[in-house]
């Protein structure tokens, strides 16, 4: 019951957050210089043409009036129509969302895997050269941002050793039986290893670029907490019971050391999703991020608004999931 109440409270505060995000985005993109109408008309259009087009998109009204019209639509599930694509914003955004979700989750999985292995190996071999090497690799991974990793990976595995695809989401000439936009998930469910291989070959480099900095953060923090935990009395006591190093690390230390890491992963995962904007552009990956850049370049106001709101919803959801996971993993929170 307490958990349910906590969730409801979180949902209510999230709604307030989203409303705030909506107001800020709406105002900011209208106040900054550059307007969609001047982008659409050829040079030499008359003031009359401009005024008519502005009126057509409702841009001649005051910002509060525009906001009320837009917000009224949003509450009924209508996010407006994209100015450049002339399609409903909601359809466009939801069509691209699966591609970005699949990429982000794959990147998160890779990051947890790489960071976890680094932390556990470093703890198991603490005090050796391997630990020092892991620390150096962590530092490097951490100090280079994701888009630079993207370029490095393109150079390494796209140009010098061309083993992976560096552009797009899937090879278009393949027979694509998809009914949803969750291509990877659907190929797995349809048991089509050929498609899974092709999709992964496209996704692996952008996912790695996103994952490497996060893996370094996970590796560093988890190793630090493991190291602290390894000195605690219950770990020493487990040793006197005859347990070896592997058991002591995995069964005694890890369940406790993982909690601070989990909270951080939640925060960092939202940064990772933010990172998809540039990485998707770099790899011409047809996701939300790529769409967002097009929308900004074209001053497609309704589309920008829709994308930002969707990102805000995702961030809120991720935070909620992380909080719930912490409760699930920490008996002190679970049994008051």
């Amino acid at each position, binding site marked *: 019951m307490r958990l349910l109440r906590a969730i409801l409270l979180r949902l209510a505060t999230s709604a307030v957050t989203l409303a705030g995000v909506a107001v800020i985005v709406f105002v900011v993109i209208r106040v900054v210089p550059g307007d969609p109408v001047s982008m659409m008309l050829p040079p030499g259009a008359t003031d009359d043409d401009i005024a008519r087009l502005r009126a057509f998109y409702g841009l001649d009204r005051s910002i509060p009036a525009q906001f009320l019209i837009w917000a009224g639509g949003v509450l009924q599930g209508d996010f407006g129509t994209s100015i450049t694509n002339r399609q409903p914003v909601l359809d466009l955004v939801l069509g691209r969302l699966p591609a970005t979700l699949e990429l982000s989750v794959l990147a998160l999985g890779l990051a947890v895997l790489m960071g976890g292995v680094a932390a556990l190996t470093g703890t198991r071999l603490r005090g050796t050269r391997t630990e020092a090497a892991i620390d150096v690799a962590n530092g490097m991974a951490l100090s280079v941002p994701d888009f630079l990793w993207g370029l490095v990976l393109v150079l390494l595995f796209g140009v010098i050793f061309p083993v992976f695809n560096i552009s797009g989401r899937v090879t278009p000439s393949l027979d694509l039986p998809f009914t949803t936009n969750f291509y990877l998930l659907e190929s797995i469910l349809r048991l089509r290893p050929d498609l899974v291989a092709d999709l992964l070959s496209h996704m692996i480099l952008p996912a790695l670029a996103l994952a490497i900095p996060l893996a370094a953060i996970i590796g560093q923090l988890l190793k630090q907490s493991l190291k602290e935990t390894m000195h605690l009395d219950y770990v020493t*006591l487990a040793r006197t019971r005859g347990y070896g190093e592997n058991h002591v690390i995995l069964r005694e230390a890890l369940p406790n050391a993982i909690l601070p890491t989990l909270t951080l992963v939640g925060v960092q995962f939202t940064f990772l999703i933010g990172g998809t904007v540039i990485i998707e552009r770099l790899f011409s990956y047809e996701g939300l991020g790529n769409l967002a850049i097009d929308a900004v370049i074209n001053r497609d106001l309704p589309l920008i608004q829709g994308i930002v709101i969707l990102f805000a919803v995702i961030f809120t959801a991720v935070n909620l999931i992380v909080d719930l996971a912490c409760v699930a993993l920490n008996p002190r929170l679970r049994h008051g």
Partner: protein
Amino acid sequence: MSFLVVRGLSARLKGDGARLLRGVGLSVAPGEVRGLVGESGAGKSMIGKAVLGILPQAVEVTGGEILLDGTDLLTLPPGERRRRVGAACALIPQDPLTALNPARRIGPQITGRLVDILGWDRARARTRAEEALAETHLPDPERIMRAYPHQLSGGQRQRCLIASAFVAGPRLIVADEPTTALDVTVQKQILRLIAEMQARHGTALLFVTHDLGVVSKVCQSLTVLYAGMVVEDTGVRSFFRAPAHPYSAALLAATPRYTDPGGSLTPVPEAVLAAVRAEVAARDAAAEGARHG
């Protein structure tokens, strides 16, 4: 025949080479409770840790032997040593609040050794663990097995740790200041419980403490340490009647007495300290001489 025999055990810090143990010798027979006393830093906990193989990484053993049932632990490969110690020995730790894993239920923390190290089946391990909890007078052992550490009081947790120490029928238990972190009323009960469990199982018990009052209640023999050197090794009765070494006598005189709460505390006299320090220096010089000679 003593179950644990320590001979000439020396240890030092890896960094500056500071001596921590100076040729310590002691023995504990089955059913015997031996007190190990000394000031903070005298190396009393260090001996218990060396026996159990949990010395800090910065400490290295430089000589001597630790015979467990006649086998020198220091010559065994690490895995073999761990299993042997895990099967035959147990530790009752100092602080019950930090010695239980907060992320795991009590049950698996007690049965783990039986199942994983001794190869019992789960049902039998469970029954034995509940029995051990009942031996420590904890009500409703089944509920305790399901509880997480934070749901129990300090005294209850120490009882769980005592049950865990005795669960596999160990032949040697090291109790490292097991009552220091508890409040006085609980201290007494826990002390009585340890003595009771030890007597029931006929375990050899090495009782590390700085409290001579505790020694007089539970121990039969004791070893007095100063700066990692054995100053006196004697029976409890003869010790409290007439300590042989001036340092032991001064330590005994320095113990506050409940019978005289207004009395002032007597520190160990400087002359006695100087004498015992000279002994330590002579021991070190002899060790150096033996090494180079």
